[in-house]
């Protein structure tokens, strides 16, 4: 490795062939450079045609230096003039591997580079590089991560910000980029826990299969867009409403049974602290009745309310087979 100061004007910032880092957020790097200067040299590669140097390692450092108005950076150059793409990328890969585990999008980017830019076969990627990236050496894993690299930029951002789980991202990445592009605006407006993400995406896939459309088509229905665009709802409320809407569409008979149950339950005029719960899927006619009271008087009043409910014709209907 040969080290020297390189003017930033001689570096090609547009060439991101060897980039692995997903997050190019500059603030922490700028703060570090301002505090202690450039500790580690970046790694650059000279071009055979004497054009501007290519960045191998140090994308964030160089961008931060540029944003700070610096004219040059300390850089190392691999020995010899002609290391091939793979040799250069391995420098970047091992440099990253030595620092911290690869985030999923970084692993996806690295695998894509190894395949597309470095011409590595699937077999080599599976056997050699998946373990290096901390992944299980299996063809399906490779395919999932290559798909993940094609994730729509908006969805990448959601994932990077922790709002989209890896399994949700993998699922979304199976769709075409155009479909992902149609889903992204809705998904950016809502928040869902990991399990609800899974449920919503599964509901979208199910409804898409049933109605002969795409998950994007389902998520862009007028009702969904109206919920997603409702300014009075928080992102979490929007997510929950959309989940409920999709579940009702997916399970119309169960929904009808639930609606009928709750309508009939209302007719019993029970006090609010009395819980009356059916079997969640009406598999059995059993009902669970529960209440908490803090005094004998409250107990007596509750018992009287239950007694009145017992005389209501609506009670029989609650036990009818739906």
């Amino acid at each position, binding site marked *: 490795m040969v080290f020297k100061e390189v003017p930033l004007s001689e570096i090609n910032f547009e060439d991101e062939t060897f980039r692995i880092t997903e997050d190019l957020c500059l603030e922490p790097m700028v703060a570090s450079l301002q505090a202690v200067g450039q500790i580690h040299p970046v790694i650059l590669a000279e071009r055979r045609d004497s054009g501007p140097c290519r960045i191998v390692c140090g994308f964030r450092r160089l961008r931060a230096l540029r944003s700070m108005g610096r004219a040059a950076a300390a850089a190392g150059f691999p020995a010899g003039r002609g290391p091939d793409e793979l040799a250069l990328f391995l420098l970047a890969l091992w440099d990253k591997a030595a620092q911290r585990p690869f985030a999923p999008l970084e692993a996806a980017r690295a695998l894509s580079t190894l395949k597309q830019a470095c011409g590595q076969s699937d077999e080599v990627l*599976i056997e050699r590089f998946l373990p290096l990236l901390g992944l299980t050496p*299996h*063809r*399906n894993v490779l*395919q999932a991560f290559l798909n993940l690299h094609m994730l729509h930029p908006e969805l990448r951002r959601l994932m990077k910000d922790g709002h989209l789980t890896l399994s949700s991202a993998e699922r979304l990445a199976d769709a075409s980029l155009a479909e992902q592009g149609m889903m992204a605006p809705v998904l950016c407006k809502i928040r869902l826990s990991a399990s609800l993400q899974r449920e919503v995406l599964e509901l979208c*896939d*199910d409804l898409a*299969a*049933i109605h002969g459309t795409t998950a994007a088509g389902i998520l862009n229905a007028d009702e969904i867009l109206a919920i997603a665009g409702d300014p009075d709802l928080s992102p979490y409320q929007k997510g929950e409403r959309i989940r409920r809407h999709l579940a009702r569409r*997916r*399970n*119309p*008979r*169960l929904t009808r*049974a639930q609606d009928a149950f709750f309508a009939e339950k209302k007719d019993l005029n029970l006090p609010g602290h009395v819980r009356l719960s059916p079997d*969640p*899927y*009406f*598999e*059995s006619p059993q009902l669970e009745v529960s209440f908490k009271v803090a005094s004998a008087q409250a107990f007596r009043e509750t018992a009287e309310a239950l007694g009145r409910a017992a005389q209501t014709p609506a009670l029989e209907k609650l036990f009818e*087979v*739906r």
Partner: protein
Amino acid sequence: MPMVPYHPTRILVQEEAWNDVATREILQRLPYAAPQTVRDIDSLLPELRAAADFRGAGKRTLILARNRGDFMKLCPGAGAEICCNYHVINYALNCHLECTYCVMQAFLNNPALTIYTNVGDLMREVRDKVLRAPQRSFRIGTGETADSLALDGITGYSTRLVPMFRTLRNAVLELKTKSAQIANLQGLDHGGHTIISWSLNPRRIIREEELKTASLGERLAAARQCQLWGYRLGFHFDPLIWYEGWEQEYEEVVRDLFRAVDPAGISWISLGCLRFTPHLKEIVRRRFPRSSVPNGEFVPGNHGKLRYFRPIRDEMYSKMLACIRSRAPGAFVYLCMENRAAWERSFGIAPSSSDALSAAMDGRAGIDGG
């Protein structure tokens, strides 16, 4: 469409399986593929599971191996509130017929098709277990982890099992299939101790979901032939699959069934609605994107399995029962993997216990439990 025959592209023989007569017989029937010897089947798993669709690709590898465990087990349905106390013999693992809903896709670790070659051990074990309990009756099927007859042209196992069951007073063998592979059954001395059963579904389901199986017409023609050979028959509407217009198409199947065979020779007809695990649903969506099987209205049931919402199941069972009884009033129809309440809602009556159902089925099978 006739059943697509099984043509493995690679045959692996576990070292000790070379000692079994069955191995040599099977290989003689598959002369186009040179067998390779393997010492450790498990060491092949990474390779067998490497393909993108390893569940489909894996079946092209046939493994001939010895079963080191028990062949005969209680049916996995045992433990349900009302269960028929069935036993299963696992003579093979996996099936090449590619039913989209096949549960084996989700639970088989090894995607290859494995045939156990120590059939002598199998027969000894079954005989010992049956003879050791002369006061009990045994209904035993081979269709749990493989189709009973789809591979019979390769294994010829029916020619060993059927005559053996002839000698077991208190046992009956049920060969359950979606094929029309009955050639080996002709002329066997079954003595009424073998029932040949078919899983039935409408033509549309067979075409779209049971991809390499025999057509409905072939299955019914084979059933008719077996009846002429003196075998008693069984039919299984399992899985019943809901879709728009299911009533009419299942009614057509029932009509065709009773046109093809004499109801008096049918031991039993079972009904069981489609059930599968969430994991299997994912596999089906991925492997068979055009399958409509996962589109039904499912709810989680016992043991984490998904089942149709109860009113859908009730409706399917009661309509199927009415349809069958309208053509065969004396038909013995039972529910598989359902509880007492489901029986009562759909049939208006339920067996008093699993033992009562079991005894009734023994009677239908014509076996003597002492």
